[in-house]
């Protein structure tokens, strides 16, 4: 057990699984000698060599497409895309090829592979480098879309993702890569990301988020506690599939809900959660479900990003309204 940040936990998971399973190989731009754009793979090139930590040409579509070819051949590729916004260059391969392989071949071929990418803003990077587009992949049936919020989950969820028989898009919080720290066991444990994680218990309201929004929700919960409002905070961990039972139970226990995410409001994943709760937890709801999200606008330059991002103050204000609403 040692204290790690999220990047270190990811690196630990990759190294752990590469040592245990020689089918696991890494692909990405500058992941080898350079150590990765955020150093997620730092040291792995030296440890495992250029044959397993492969510096790819700048070609997102073919990085994912060739990773699929590797997966169809029985290897376990883990591809890094430098920013999730860049994964749009590989959208066809991810959505039309990787996700569909099992279904269209009726299980004869499948893609056991992981695509890692940081997403979201908060570190003064501009648009494309800050876009939270995880929900754009959440309609890719056949794909799993997951997003850890803390170092323990980052390692355990990544190990589970690499071992998963299906393809996993592993969305990492760019904001929090280094700042969110916590205890991480040295063993090769896994985290069952199909289950939402209740990270804080409270009786008055339920805050739902994933990845770095979980930390925002936790800080909001602390602020709310000083006002006498006790919040449950749920980390859904996985967008696709969504743990419907988990979020319904967490909302039924309080009757009030605020959903937090960085992506724009319209057609964001919060809409899916809200609609699900409106149906499945209807008789428990005592106030309208609120969403605290990015605005319906492209990501701004650094000066405006704190206004753009769903911050603690906005979550607290929404939670207060919801907690008092009838």
């Amino acid at each position, binding site marked *: 057990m040692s204290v790690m940040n999220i990047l270190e936990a990811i690196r630990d998971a990759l190294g752990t699984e590469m040592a245990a399973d020689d089918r696991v190989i890494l692909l990405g731009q500058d992941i080898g000698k350079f150590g990765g754009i955020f150093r997620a793979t730092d040291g792995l090139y030296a440890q495992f060599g250029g044959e397993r930590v492969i510096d790819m040409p700048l*070609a997102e579509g073919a990085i994912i497409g060739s990773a699929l070819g590797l997966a169809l051949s029985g290897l376990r590729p883990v591809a890094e895309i430098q920013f999730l916004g860049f994964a749009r260059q590989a959208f066809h391969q991810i959505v039309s090829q990787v996700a569909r392989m099992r*279904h*269209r071949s*009726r299980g*004869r071929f499948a893609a056991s592979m992981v695509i890692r990418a940081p997403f979201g803003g908060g570190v003064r990077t501009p648009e494309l480098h800050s876009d939270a587009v995880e929900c754009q992949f959440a309609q890719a049936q056949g794909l799993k879309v997951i997003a850890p919020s*803390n170092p323990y989950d980052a390692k355990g969820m990544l190990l589970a993702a690499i071992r998963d028989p299906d393809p996993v898009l592993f969305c990492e919080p760019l904001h929090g890569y280094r700042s969110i720290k*916590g205890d991480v066991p040295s063993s090769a444990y896994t985290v069952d990301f199909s289950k939402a994680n209740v990270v804080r218990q409270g009786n008055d309201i339920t805050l739902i988020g994933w990845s770095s929004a979980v930390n925002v929700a936790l800080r909001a919960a602390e602020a709310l506690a000083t006002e006498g409002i006790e919040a449950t905070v749920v980390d859904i961990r996985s967008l696709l599939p969504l743990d419907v039972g988990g979020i319904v139970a967490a909302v039924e226990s309080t009757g009030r809900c605020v959903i937090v995410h960085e992506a724009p409001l319209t057609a964001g994943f919060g809409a899916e959660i809200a609609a699900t709760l409106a149906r499945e937890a209807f008789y428990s709801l005592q106030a309208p479900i609120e969403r605290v999200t990015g605005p319906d606008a492209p990501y701004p330059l650094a000066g405006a990003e704190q206004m753009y991002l769903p911050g603690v103050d906005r979550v607290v204000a929404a939670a207060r309204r919801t907690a008092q609403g009838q």
Partner: protein
Amino acid sequence: MAKRRADTRNGVGDRALHHELLRTMLLQRRFEERCAEAYAVGKIGGFCHLYIGQEATGTGAISVLRDDDYVIGTYRDHAQAIARGIAPRAIMAELFGRIDGCSGGKGGSMHLFSREHNFLGGHGIVGGNIPLATGVAFAIKYRGGDQVCLCFFGEAAVNIGSFHESLNMAGLWKLPVIYVIENNRYGMGTALERASAINDIAERARAYDMPRSVVDGQDVLAVRQAVGEAVQRARTECVPTLIEARTYRFMGHSMSDAAAGTYRSKAELDEQLKRDPIALLRSRMQDKGEITDAEVTALDAEVRAQCEDAWQFADQSPEPPLEALYEDVLVDTTSDPELAPVAAGVPPTVAPIAAA
């Protein structure tokens, strides 16, 4: 089928080889004629793209492979599946969307798969399969194997990014892959010269330091020769090749458009029909005394019977149950003990990080 392919590979003589190639191409032709019929009567839904006229390209290329090599194709994949030895019954059942199809009735015309034959599709999006082939070749090299991957696509695909991304990787890393351009001159209805900055598209290999060749795609033996050399190079030296097979489709792009009259003239089509790849091989064999008229008639009857059998088989195979819609989307990992969560004591409390 697979066994027979192996025999022809080991040089049992031209006559037997030519008979085998003729049989395969004739089977493809008759099979797809039945596909057209099945489409017309509604047995096949959606789209249906026929390979009629192009048989020599796929047949010649696949005929030089070993059983442990890989083939990956496009949406015009029926004939390649036949050449690879997938049973006509399983292919027709797949086209009919039936449970005994080679993709279980969930892939359809454009998505034929067979693990047993290392046949990795059938891909519906132009150019979408090229990176996969590159990855398969990458895996072969990673494992130190001597298989090759044969990747088909049409001439329109050479204008797509995935073509360039993939050929760059294959050229850079010297992967055992053979990219075969089935240049049938038209991307749907747009002629090559109206879509590509250069007409000799095999020249694009130069940009990726890759051997290239242009071959008469109507001449099955010429295709065998060209692909055979490329396969040998890939297998022994790990060098990729780009081959442009110049061919022609005698039908429309799919079953929903006319063979001629809009983007190409009837006169052009008639001229091309004179170079029917099956007739070319048959004539050559007849000239050499390798086949008699009676044998041709008997062979035709044999493959027609095989196609009728495939139709009957497909027609009697049930459709997948509606529940199958939800199957094979994701594996149920909760029921697999191998995938049970590996515990590591009590997980730490997730605490808010003030500075984050």
